[in-house]
């Protein structure tokens, strides 16, 4: 499906979604409440069949956090980027998509470890790369550590 066709199909099901077609992939920005229904539709629906989640990450824009999900369909060969804005920087939380794509389990643990985003319904949410009793979330922009020697 081309980007325009994808945009039309998604906006029919989720009218509140915002689109950005300027980059390489079509980007859909959606609210946290509608996030899980959208991902469910994208992975299960015959027309979309996004069966391959290849990148899950988070960007810290200082005033808010932005979760970014990159999807690919191995059957239809189209790409999509889904973004969710998390305005609460103290206790950000979003639904987990481990039930849809098994690869999300490790990726979400990594985002929890480095950014502090809590994933609801995650089967095993704990730190992945850092020590269990590490203080703070290093990839945030306001992270301060006396061990870090600045250039």
């Amino acid at each position, binding site marked *: 499906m081309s980007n325009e066709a994808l945009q039309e199909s998604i906006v029919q099901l989720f009218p509140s979604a915002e689109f950005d077609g300027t980059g390489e992939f079509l980007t859909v920005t959606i609210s946290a409440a509608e996030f899980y229904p959208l991902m469910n539709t994208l992975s299960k629906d015959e027309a979309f069949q996004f069966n391959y989640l290849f990148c899950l*990450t988070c960007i810290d824009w200082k005033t808010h956090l932005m979760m*970014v999900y990159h999807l690919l369909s191995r059957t239809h060969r189209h790409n999509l980027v889904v973004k969710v804005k998390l305005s609460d920087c103290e206790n950000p939380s979003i639904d987990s998509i481990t039930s849809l794509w098994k*690869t999300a389990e490790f990726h979400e643990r990594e985002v929890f470890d480095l950014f502090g985003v809590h994933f609801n319904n995650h089967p095993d949410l704990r730190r992945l790369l850092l020590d269990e009793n590490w203080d703070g979330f*290093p990839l945030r922009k306001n992270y301060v550590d006396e061990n870090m020697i600045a250039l």
Partner: protein
Amino acid sequence: MSLLGENYYTEEGEFVINIGPQHPSTHGVLHLKVWLDGETIKRVQPHLGYIHRSIEKMSESLSYRNFIYATSRMDYLSAHINNEACALTVEKGLQIEAPPRAQAIRILLAELTRLSSHLLWWGCTGLDLGAVTPFFYAFREREMILDIMEETCGARLTQNFMVPGGVMYDIHPNFQKRTKDILVQVKSKLGEYYNILTGNPIFEQRTKGVGYLSAEDAISFGCTGPIARASGVSCDVRKWFPYEGYDKLEFKEILLTDGDCYARYMLRMAEMSESISIIEQLIDNIPEGDIQTKTKQVLKLPKGEFYQRVETARGELGVFIVSDGAASPYRIKYRSPNFSNLSALETMAKGSKIGDLIAIMATMDLIVPDIDR
């Protein structure tokens, strides 16, 4: 309580042991906690982070020319391909393209890297399963390839030869002749390698039927590279999203459907032959011209997000750069192939024995610093 824990019994009578972080066959510092019932594996839980060098945070304070060197150290056996991915992403942001000569040199070095990585994998697979001879044979050819790279790039392992816009220097005058010699040598030795390991009955018993991964599981776990292709999932980035002139070359994407360790082994051996054929197509046809597109001294990407994928020896590497217009990236995320491949380990290993776990780890070909970044 130390991170490693101690070996203990659970209430169900299962015995929990630690494999690693220091272990001869974990291919790096991977700590696996294994729940055993006798010798049968019930659960495998990887613990990561023993080589987490905070490359993503460090790259946020480096310039767009500097951050490439850290990626050579992530998946150090495909160092050229990692550097190529970063250079391509920056070029995408600057909307420039490398000249044809630079693209041909990049493909040649990438395929040589893939060949040397698979040779080392073959040697270490033999070593893990108890055969020590393949280790020495594989390094013999690998040393020849590294000598060629050292003459052109200046280093054996962490070359840093790719720059945004092209390659750093032109190839050495001996490059073409030495590469042709080594292709002749490797082609003649591949038959010998098949005789040593592939037809060996002990090897076949240890790998056939072991560590099965279905195609649906491979897609759901996000596996790419030889692991997914051995389960029948077509995912070669050089065919799906061609970059740098791969669409003009003739090579096959090999797919097998068995999904066990033996299939992954045979697939990598066949990929070595494909890499040789790609090098043969290009080695006499390197176009003349510049090796670098002119770029400014200080690179600044425009605001936006850029994603580039390449095919490393282990799967699809993705570099995701978020830029806010400054001279350093705002956020870099490396979608590393080994990270997703590792999540399929438990599915593959459940129900098999510890000896099978070693065979599965050997054919999965993980590089742990790529997982931890």
